[in-house]
């Protein structure tokens, strides 16, 4: 019977050991790589970033064609928009005198400024498209059916919030595209019966797009609507778990 004799640790083994088994590393990551089923479940349940997941899911749900990751990617876009948005906030002042110049500065003199602005804009478009596609996926797989009725409603609210987030961001560059798109958009809002003109006035802080509109859209865009969206997203994700995970055939 062949007995494996212990081999001498190679230089690679030693480096690996020094890197991942030292005192500081272990203070950050409480366990090593989870390589047993028990530890793999524990790492999902006890990690602050992963604990949104259940520890185990039905095998049909990891099939990419079941969800195309659309909901997760919408959330990922939200995270990416938060990161790039914060970076843009360092350079942007929402006043009529400075807004346009600040955007010009971001695109010309700020290191990676143009890249951050591009990322922010394309991610915003991607998020609108992904959220809509996510809704289509949920509909065509019949995943809105009981017991997930309320989560579908939360999803419709999140769709509206996504549109509003994108719409409020549209004004901020204060260029001709922004100004007239918001003029047209708020005119649509203003046509509502009874409440329309008041809503429009409240949104713009006046009868036409001006300095007050800029600060209102900015505040809604960077704090008001993201907070609201975050609350609804928390409910949305929580309800997925409470309603029994992703829908699957009975």
């Amino acid at each position: 019977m062949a007995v494996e004799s212990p081999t001498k640790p190679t230089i690679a083994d030693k480096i690996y050991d020094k890197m991942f088994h030292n005192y500081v590393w272990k203070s950050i990551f409480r366990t090593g790589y989870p390589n047993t089923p028990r530890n793999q479940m524990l790492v999902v349940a006890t990690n602050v970033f992963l604990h949104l997941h259940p520890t185990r899911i039905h095998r049909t749900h990891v099939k990419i064609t079941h969800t195309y990751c659309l909901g997760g990617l919408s959330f990922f876009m939200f995270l990416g928009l938060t990161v790039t948005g914060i970076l843009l906030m360092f350079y942007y002042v929402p006043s009529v005198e400075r807004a346009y110049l600040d955007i010009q500065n971001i695109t010309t003199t700020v290191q990676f400024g143009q890249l951050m602005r591009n990322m922010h804009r394309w991610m915003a478009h991607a998020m609108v498209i992904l959220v809509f596609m996510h809704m289509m996926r949920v509909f065509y797989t019949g995943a809105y059916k009981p017991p997930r009725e309320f989560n579908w409603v939360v999803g419709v609210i999140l769709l509206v919030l996504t549109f509003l987030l994108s719409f409020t961001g549209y004004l901020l560059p204060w260029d001709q595209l922004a100004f007239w798109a918001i003029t047209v958009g708020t005119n649509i809002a203003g046509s509502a019966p009874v409440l329309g003109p008041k809503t429009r006035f409240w949104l713009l802080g006046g009868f036409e797009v001006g300095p007050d509109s800029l600060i209102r859209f900015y505040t809604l865009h960077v704090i008001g609507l993201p907070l609201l969206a975050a609350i609804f997203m928390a409910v949305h994700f929580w309800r997925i778990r409470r309603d029994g995970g992703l829908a699957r055939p009975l």
Partner: protein
Amino acid sequence: MATAVVARPVARPQARARDEEVLVWPDLVFIEFIAALVFTITLFFLSVVVNAPLLDQANADVTPNPSKAPWYLLNLQELLLHMNAAMAGIIIPTVWLIIMGAFPYFDRDTEGQGAWFNTEGAVKITIVAGAIGFFGTWLLILWDSGKIAFFLNDWFGITGGDTFRFLENVRSMQSQLPWPEWSKSITYLPFNLRLLDGTGSGGPTTFQHLDFPGWLVEQAIPIAVLVGLPTLMIYGMWRAGWVMNRRDALLALFSGFVAAYGVLTLTGTAFRGQGQELVFPWELKVSEGIPGQEPGH
């Protein structure tokens, strides 16, 4: 005799099939990581290659022609061209969002969830309803822009003369028919209820003096079309034996919506030129509205 009221229980989460389950780490976390990575890289390269647009500084005195809302609102801007502003801009989208939110309360059957197109006729219904929504919306847009009458005349020499001019588009019914004077101001409320006539919204009616031809083309016909055509489609599919339950009806409705929504967005984005005229995308020019630089017509 007292009848016991039995509350219909709300559906509970399904029992788990534990032997069919896989571990989230690594199976799902890995997929999420790859998906996030693919999107980060794709968007990164897109951002390197394509710059976000930045035009001249905002100027309230210089109006670009056409002025357009952000692309995801252009479906509403397209609707605005065909009907009353309050209806197109607010009432229809709000009502539709409420209808959509109410889907699961209408279709309460728990059968057939968790798999793509999971009723017998689902694929057929989706494709046909999508096609109806797609071509139907295009036809309606073409008709209301007067293009169908134009093509009939231009290509086939068919013309209705003055007799049929009122069929050219929806608003010609208001302008080309000999409406009697009294029909343009029908008093039907003794007091002035200003509901659809908020300042600036410019609705064609007041609840005191109804402009009947205006009301007909701005509100009645559009509502009849928007409610009637989907109803007719679902009814037809039901009679044909395709639509067999509420799920099927919703499949037809939603697929028609997605197609119509797509066509409206696309038309508003790529087919509307100066003065919101219907043009081909390659003819689409934007006038920056700077005095002295107007392109000649």
